[in-house]
């Protein structure tokens, strides 16, 4: 239902030209599109009824993000809703929880400031520090590639209150309002659309009430929302792959060289068939990941790692083969596939690449 509405809305409103104009704009996303999609219920679908939404399960996430991926949407639903909103919904006190209503209505932007320059994909590697004294908390450190940081009304910043640099224990989360003194953002566009920033925290001073959840126990909640983000990312990539494969089919059937459609050359026809075969694998991997999202963490993460590894492999194949079978046209910015291929490949740089998830899978399946 929402899926159909969303697909129709995006196919009417979000064509290549509109989207490319949005990408090149100062903000890097469209507040109008954001508001209209919120109105359609896209954000509400990502939260459970207790949280004020009407979905929030694995398949709700995968359905929404597959459609967003199909149209190559660059608006920050993952960052604001799944990551930021997910953490507030899971950990927030009453006052913090009140933000969710505004968020679902489309009136709030969030960003998760967790990754650090040398952390790569390790979730527990946090060097940013939080020191509490006299009822105040002081944050110092640096966060890298914080997606949606410039637009965010609040950043959710992870910082270490105790323990060694890679310890699972000792990480806390803080809700930091935009514009807080000591917070510096260096913003930039990203390769596949959207904006991010390098964030510096220089004696950022907060009241103790800015802490989200229990001191030192932030990693479990982070792991939970990132498990959800992985389903969203994989589904988004799947949707983008569907577009890539459809564009490729149309091109193979219409582009003529040597007096015939190039799809009639067996060398290309077989490669197109291989993409379809792998796409079925990809779809099933997303179903496995989404369907196990509510399982206990070990089971959930095993399926999550398996999903991301497979999606990473198929994604690269689909992106590269679709470009190759098109030829030069797919290399041009104004052709839809160029953006779609970038979205697919760049998925592999958030919350772990194909190899990282392979290692996670090996680790978790041995456990």
């Amino acid at each position: 239902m929402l899926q159909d509405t969303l697909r129709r809305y995006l196919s009417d409103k979000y064509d290549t030209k509109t989207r490319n104009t949005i990408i090149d704009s100062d903000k890097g996303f469209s507040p109008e599109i954001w508001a209209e999609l919120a109105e359609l219920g896209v954000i509400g679908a990502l939260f459970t009824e207790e949280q004020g939404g009407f979905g929030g399960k694995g398949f709700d996430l995968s359905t929404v993000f597959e459609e967003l991926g199909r149209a190559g949407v660059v608006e920050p639903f993952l960052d604001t809703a799944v990551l930021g909103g997910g953490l507030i919904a899971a950990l927030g006190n009453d006052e913090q929880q009140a933000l969710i209503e505004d968020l679902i209505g489309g009136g709030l932007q969030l960003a998760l400031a967790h990754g650090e320059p040398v952390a790569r994909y390790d979730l527990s590697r946090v060097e940013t520090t939080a020191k509490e004294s006299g009822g105040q908390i002081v944050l110092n450190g640096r966060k890298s590639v914080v997606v949606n940081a410039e637009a965010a009304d609040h950043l959710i910043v992870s910082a270490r209150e105790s323990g060694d640099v890679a310890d699972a224990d000792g990480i806390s989360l803080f809700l930091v309002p935009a514009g807080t003194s000591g917070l510096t953002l260096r913003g930039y566009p990203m390769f596949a659309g959207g904006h991010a920033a390098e964030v510096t925290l220089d004696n950022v001073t907060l009241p103790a009430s800015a802490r989200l959840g229990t001191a030192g126990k932030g990693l479990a909640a982070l792991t939970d929302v990132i498990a959800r983000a992985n389903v969203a990312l994989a589904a988004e990539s799947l949707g983008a792959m569907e577009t890539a494969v459809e564009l490729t089919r149309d091109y193979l059937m219409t582009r003529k060289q040597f007096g015939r459609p190039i799809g009639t050359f067996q060398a290309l026809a077989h490669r197109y068939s291989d993409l379809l075969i792998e796409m079925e694998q990809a779809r099933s991997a997303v179903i496995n990941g989404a369907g196990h999202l509510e399982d206990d963490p070990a089971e959930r993460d095993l399926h999550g790692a398996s999903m991301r590894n497979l999606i990473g492999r198929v994604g690269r194949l689909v992106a590269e083969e679709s470009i190759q079978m098109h030829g030069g046209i797919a290399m041009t910015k104004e052709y839809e596939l160029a953006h779609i291929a970038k979205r697919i490949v760049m998925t592999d740089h958030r919350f772990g690449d194909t190899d990282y998830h392979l290692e996670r899978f090996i680790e978790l399946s041995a456990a």
Partner: protein
Amino acid sequence: MDLNWNPEDIAFREEVRAFLDEKLPKEIAAKVKRRGDLTKADMERWHAILNEKGWLAPNWPKKFGGAEWNAVQKHIFEEECARAGAPRIVPFGLAMLAPVLQKFGSKEQQDYYLPRILNGDDWWCQGYSEPGAGSDLASLKTRAVRDGDHYIVNGQKTWTTLGQHANMIFCLVRTDPDAKQQEGISFLLIDMNTPGIEVRPIILLDGVHEVNEVWFTDVKVPVENLVGEENKGWTYAKYLLTHERTGIAGVGFSQAGLESVKRIAKAEQASGKPLIQNPHFAARLAKVEIDLMAMATSNMRIISRAQAGQAPGVESSMLKVKGTIIRQEINDLARRAVGPYAMPFPSEAVEGDNDPIGPDYAGPVSSAYFNNRKLSIFGGSNEIQRGIIAKVKMGG
């Protein structure tokens, strides 16, 4: 086969290295290494430096002002240039048009154009592909009709690399629409400043402007700008495709790229250790290095055969396919290696004179990965090359 370089080759390599150390402008090499946009002036400056040394045209005969190097010397030169971060020589005039003029051009054309190519008076671009004629180049439709002392040219060319800098274009045009496809094509030299020519930029997926569309509306071209005979242009274009192919494997680029990936993987940390010690990453790196070691030898085998006077045929196609697969795999490894820092889209607007966004090596990797998807598409796609290999080997 002797895998060792002979003393003359070693001496030559040292000479090239010393020259590059001394003469390659540091700021240009830095730009090449960080994949910054080379300006027209940068490229012209490097050409002038090479020209002064007499090394701008390695494959031209001495009588035209070339270095007349043998295949091994050319290979060494290309390898050292890639290692040092020298800009690629802009090939259109020097490596693509010049051999055709030297073989098929008139005395007047040779005397006029060849020195201008060396001196940088003309910047040439190539007018081959059309929207409807890519892999099937012989189906091209741009029309040239003889009218007294001129041809009148109408049509459209595309993927014209660096056409925005060019003042001259060499084109394949159809002069006889009734002949068999390959037999009605002529090779024309056209001044880009002639009325009726419009150059429109094509922006690629990494945001760069390196290719263009070139539109021709009733463009008057003097008949003396025809190369060779009318309707024989396809033969000349094919000569060009088989003539100078030693660099096609891109061994130098791959070696430089691999070294760069290793540097990145030593600097990047994964779970508290250098990425290069991560078994999965190390395995990917090792596989491509093993492929490259073998291909470097394949390349040398083919070069020494060329040296002995055997024109490389189907082997060029093999080197192109394998060479581009290896280069693209190295680009993929670089992208993986930088982790989340592959996501920023660095631009002059963001970075300018400021520090890079992430580690300095991260800036160009995503651009390079996407931009180099072109390697397996242009110059005869890898599918076309595979078709040639099978056709030749099965006697088709």
